[in-house]
């Protein structure tokens, strides 16, 4: 963890009503995750208990306590995408990457995550890789995308 940037982030998010989520977002944006070592510092900064901060981090799907892979592939598996083959697409991604969903591959190259709707339901199935959206996906198009990303 980069201590300097964490203290800068804390300084940029002074205690105020409802400050915790914006601060956690800022930390995750800067560091890729919210490291456990940051929890006591955040708690002290906002006058919360460590348990409260940990409770919030663990409650929300978006926050991570450990670093993700170098690349993150999120495949939508909500109903509209299911209607266009999302389950098969996710299975294909698992096989192609050699990585189960909800996991980071052993070499740290990629994390595979199911997500529940990216708002692209009319162009299903949809996925996101490294924060770029892709719709009307097929296993073949996914292969081409992954190859382009060096995966």
């Amino acid at each position, binding site marked *: 963890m980069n201590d300097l940037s964490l203290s800068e982030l804390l300084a940029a998010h002074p205690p105020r009503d409802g400050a915790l*989520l914006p601060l956690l977002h800022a930390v995750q944006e800067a560091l890729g995750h919210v490291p456990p070592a940051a929890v006591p510092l955040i708690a002290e900064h906002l006058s919360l208990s460590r348990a409260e901060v940990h409770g919030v981090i663990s409650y929300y799907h978006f926050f991570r306590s450990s670093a993700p892979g170098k690349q993150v592939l999120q495949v939508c598996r*909500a109903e509209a995408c299911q209607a266009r083959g999302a389950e098969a697409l996710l299975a294909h991604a698992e096989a192609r990457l050699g990585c189960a969903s909800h996991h980071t591959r052993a070499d740290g190259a990629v994390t595979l995550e199911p997500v*529940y709707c990216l708002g692209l*339901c*009319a162009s299903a199935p949809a996925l996101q890789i490294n924060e770029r959206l892709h*719709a009307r996906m097929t296993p073949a198009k996914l292969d081409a995308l992954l190859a382009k990303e060096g995966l």
Partner: protein
Amino acid sequence: MTSAIVKVFVPRDSAALAVGADEVAEALRHECQCRGLKVELVRNGSRGLFWLETLVEVQTPQGRIAYGPVEAADVPGLLDAGLLQGGEHPLRQGVTEQIPFLALQERLTFRRVGVIDPLSLADYEAHEGWAGLRRALSLDGSAIIQEMLHSGLRGRGGAAFPAGIKWKTVREAQSAQKYVVCNADEGDSGTYSDRMTMEGDPFMLIEGMTIAALAVGATRGYIYIRSEYPHAIATMKEAIARATAAGFLGDSVCGSGRAFHLEVRKAAGSYVCGEETAMLESIEGKRGVVRAKPPLPALSGLFGQPTVINNVITFASAPIILARGAQAYRDFGVGRSHGTLPFQLAGNIKHGGLVEKAFGLTLRELLYGFGGGTASGRPIKAVQVGGPLGAYVPESQWDVPLDYEAYAAMGAVVGHGGIVVHDDTADLSQLARYAMEFCAIESCGKCTPCRIGSTRGVEVIDRIRFNRNNDQNRAEQVILLRDLCDTMTHGSLCAMGGMTPFPVLSALNHYPQDFGLAAPDQAAA
């Protein structure tokens, strides 16, 4: 070669970006530069005709001409064919406004989306922007609320509670600090109208929330946007900055001396945080656990203060109601469902996209008239209306008019207007299992029927699905499943646990074959 500057529109909506709109825009810029063609590239919102994205439009004397779906590689050929003059090409769709999917709509809240540059204050102003706010500033709060009440507008986020009554409650509450909160969590599969609004016409939401603030006497507002929508978040933040700089937000709204400050809050991937009290907890910086009601958020909401909470489309309807008058809005619709709803066609549908129509059309008109049937070309089997907590509607009910009461009467919901189509390869027992699984993943954990019941629901459905050879056991499990759904319906604190039985039971009742049971009983509704 012409030398006049031609306006070309390439959407910046997420759904266009996801199929390569940025690459198309870049190719256009590059090719036009190489060819010495002068173009003004406008990045508009989406018209919502998603099978045609990337939909490129060119301004011509005949109106805007549409081409789609355009890929970057098509750009040189399009320019060769005279794209900038609206020339013939296999991708040419004609005058945009005359494409039947669009021409047959009744666009009120979506009248500017896809038309204007979303972040241009000048474009917004030139297209009826701020007219509602200016009228609101000339009225007192109770007169604004009278307009809202008379319009018949009901909350578009799902529960369909009259917006005017909610605003009235907040207005009459005594407090030094009141809030306006916009629910932009839009977690339902098959819905994207909030996202399109925020990305395609953000000033409309700002205007609507400001009208609400003036009506109830609130000075601070929050827009809670799901983390899955980074483009909507960025667009809203930029729009707030521009509106503030231009004096539409801030210490003195339009020089009136009345303050309204607006802020975006990014959510963190929890479906139940779309439930209004869980959302308040989340904005306050806590775990998004549902609060018991009462007290109503209108009286004790954000930080314990009176708070107006509405959906994006609810707020976005306020400007046109104020600008054109409540009666003009009220005249759309049927029964007690007034106005229009942006229906959202999704899933296995040939022409997926946004259809804003007055209440009262039927699902069949949407599925075939607008949607053109399935994308796979196979028969439609089941349609889930109203998001993951909505019922699966079988063909026998596709002619019921879409209005809140008619849908409630058949045990279904209109919800946020999301429509997800499945063809005949769908296994409804699998989709019922998924509904339970989703509830188990997203439950806030506060009450047992939802927290434990959903996990048990997955197990029971699995026993039904994988016990194909034991009829007796399967029959027992079906009784158990119905019992469990009954407990969830009546014992849950919020609609997450309370409505998960809708998709589950509708699947079981209308598609029993998929559960290994006898064909549907014609008497079962």
